[in-house]
């Protein structure tokens, strides 16, 4: 992948809101070094500014149903198909104009296609009733349907966009070290260093990331679903997000070199093993040795 490719892809990955909030931005520069120099920072700022302007423009263009600059941008048919899906499955709780229904579901104005993608592709939505916490389920819609639904929601109120289908969301293996540092600093506190997940206060949980795809990880960081904090592209750049994704997915894919992983949950599992398997075998042994034949 060349740098130009990256730039193009990044421009599409960016946060491109239409009307809500402060101006959308992308960070199209690739920060090769971990501590950018002053010049780099200034260059980055300039690039951010340009990127923001482009993105805002793009966002407005996106509002127009005719926008279809590339394959991933929603066509009017997509939006229409998405509207159909919305009207069958979402409208009861989120309202005819995405304004939300009190006691049933929040507004979807400004949530963008990224949020739709995350919620629907992980099966959290559509949910039968509004709960404090939605858990991962088998998705109800195909990838294409989800993108159509996202295109519709995007067309109605803008918001963070799902990365295009052909975007490579994993950084190269040279970025794994940085990705790991970012993961441990920002993600591991809830999801755990081995992505095993953890309980939050009073029944809420931070889910494990075992089944998360690249795009789900990416969109989750971008929109902060449920109680997860939002990690905007200014804070964690798209490059850094990709490095995090590369680290998480590599860690999940890498085989355990030391035998059975025991769920990679650490000392609790190890303690259980020594008390059951370890001492169990030895208890049987001493019963055998101690018994008079």
């Amino acid at each position, binding site marked *: 992948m060349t740098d130009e490719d990256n730039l193009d892809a990044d421009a599409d990955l960016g946060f491109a809101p239409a009307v809500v909030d402060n101006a959308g931005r992308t960070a199209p520069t690739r920060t090769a070094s971990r501590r950018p120099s002053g010049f780099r920072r200034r260059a980055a700022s300039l690039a951010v500014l340009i990127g923001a302007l482009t993105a805002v423009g793009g966002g407005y263009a996106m509002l127009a149903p005719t926008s279809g600059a590339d394959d991933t941008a929603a066509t009017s048919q997509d939006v229409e198909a998405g509207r159909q899906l919305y009207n069958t499955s979402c409208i009861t709780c989120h309202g005819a104009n995405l304004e939300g229904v009190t006691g049933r579901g929040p507004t979807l104005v400004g949530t963008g296609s990224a949020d739709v993608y995350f919620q629907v592709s992980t099966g959290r939505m559509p949910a039968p009733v509004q709960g404090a916490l939605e858990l991962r389920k088998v998705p109800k819609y195909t990838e294409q349907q989800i993108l159509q639904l996202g295109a519709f929601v995007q067309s109605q109120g803008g918001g963070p966009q799902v990365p295009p289908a052909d975007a490579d969301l994993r950084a190269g293996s040279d970025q794994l070290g940085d990705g790991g540092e970012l993961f441990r600093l*920002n993600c591991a*506190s809830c999801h755990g260093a081995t992505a095993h997940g953890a309980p939050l206060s009073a029944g809420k949980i931070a889910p494990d990331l075992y089944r998360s795809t690249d795009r789900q990880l990416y969109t989750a960081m971008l929109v902060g679903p449920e*109680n997860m904090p939002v990690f905007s592209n*200014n804070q964690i750049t798209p490059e850094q997000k990709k490095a995090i994704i590369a680290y998480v997915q590599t860690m999940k*894919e890498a085989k355990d*070199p*030391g*035998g059975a992983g025991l769920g990679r949950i650490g000392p609790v599992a190890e303690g259980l093993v020594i008390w059951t398997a370890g001492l169990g075998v030895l208890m049987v042994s001493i019963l055998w*040795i101690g018994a008079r034949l």
Partner: protein
Amino acid sequence: MSTTHHTTGESMSAEEAARLSPEEAMIAGAEADGVYIVHRRERFPIAGTRAEKRAERTIAGVFLLGFLAAVGFIVVFCGAVPYEWRLPGTGSQNYRYFTPLVGGLLGLSLACIGIGVVLWAKWLLPEEEAVQDRHDGASGMTEQVLMAGTLVSGFNDLGVARRSMLKTTLGLAGGALGVVPLVALVGAMIKKPGRGEGQSLFHTPYKAGVPLVYYDGRRVGPDDLQPGGIATVFPGVEGGVKDSDSPTLLIRLKPGQTVKARKGQADFGWGDYVAYSKICTHAGCPASLFEQKTGRLLCPCHQSQFDVLQDAKPVFGPATRSLPKLPLTVEMVDGKQYFTAKGDFPEAIGPSFWERP
């Protein structure tokens, strides 16, 4: 055959002893030690039966398996299976078999030897029940009296009772000398808490005007976070990112969320931003499991929960103190806004300690 069973070693002459079979000698010796073999029987009274051979063959088989496992270990260890870690997709992932194989084979080999030896003892060694006198408890009365006498006589020789001056002075010298190792060790290691650069228990590297930076040194600005976003930030000074007291959690509240500030800290936030020490006031873990909707902040070590909307007050778990709040402000650099600290945390961060008011 002489009748020697009840003749203990003490009453036996060397000539007599030399005529004993090893087993008889063993019994005589054991009895000399107060060990009486009350039951002893060969497992296989008739040597060479099929049952005995079968037992022997089984044990031999176990040993042989142990041998094979050990050889297997050597073969695997010396290169039959690679041990070098490879990134998925960049080479053989067979390294994952190396450790289980060497560990498993080593275990098998050890287990075979262990089981074989125990089987040998259980199947082939004579059945035996021995009873041994304990001879325990206190020594004989005479012994005790003699011992006491020895002690007292020695004390008398030393004049412990009379020479109280010597006793006192030696006690003084010995006592003082006894403290020396303790003093030497503690004296070498002791440090006054808080003394020295960056050693303060009450202050962190934050000062008025110190910029807030990410872990990679980038500066943090109010445009960076989305509502409901958090970032771990550090003081932008030399060593600030590594300092164990400086990790700070910058939180941008969601629309509608407000923080009821503590007395005198009304202006510590900036816009919808607040910043708290990331170091838990309970045991010092980074308390950073933030629920953006509820505003709860959870520490993963002992589950203390802080409510950011109540200015990071502890609402559950063992923590007793609110997370210290960092006063924020913003400066313009090249037309862009960046956060700086308005000063240090107003109180000591992290777990409580005695000197802390």
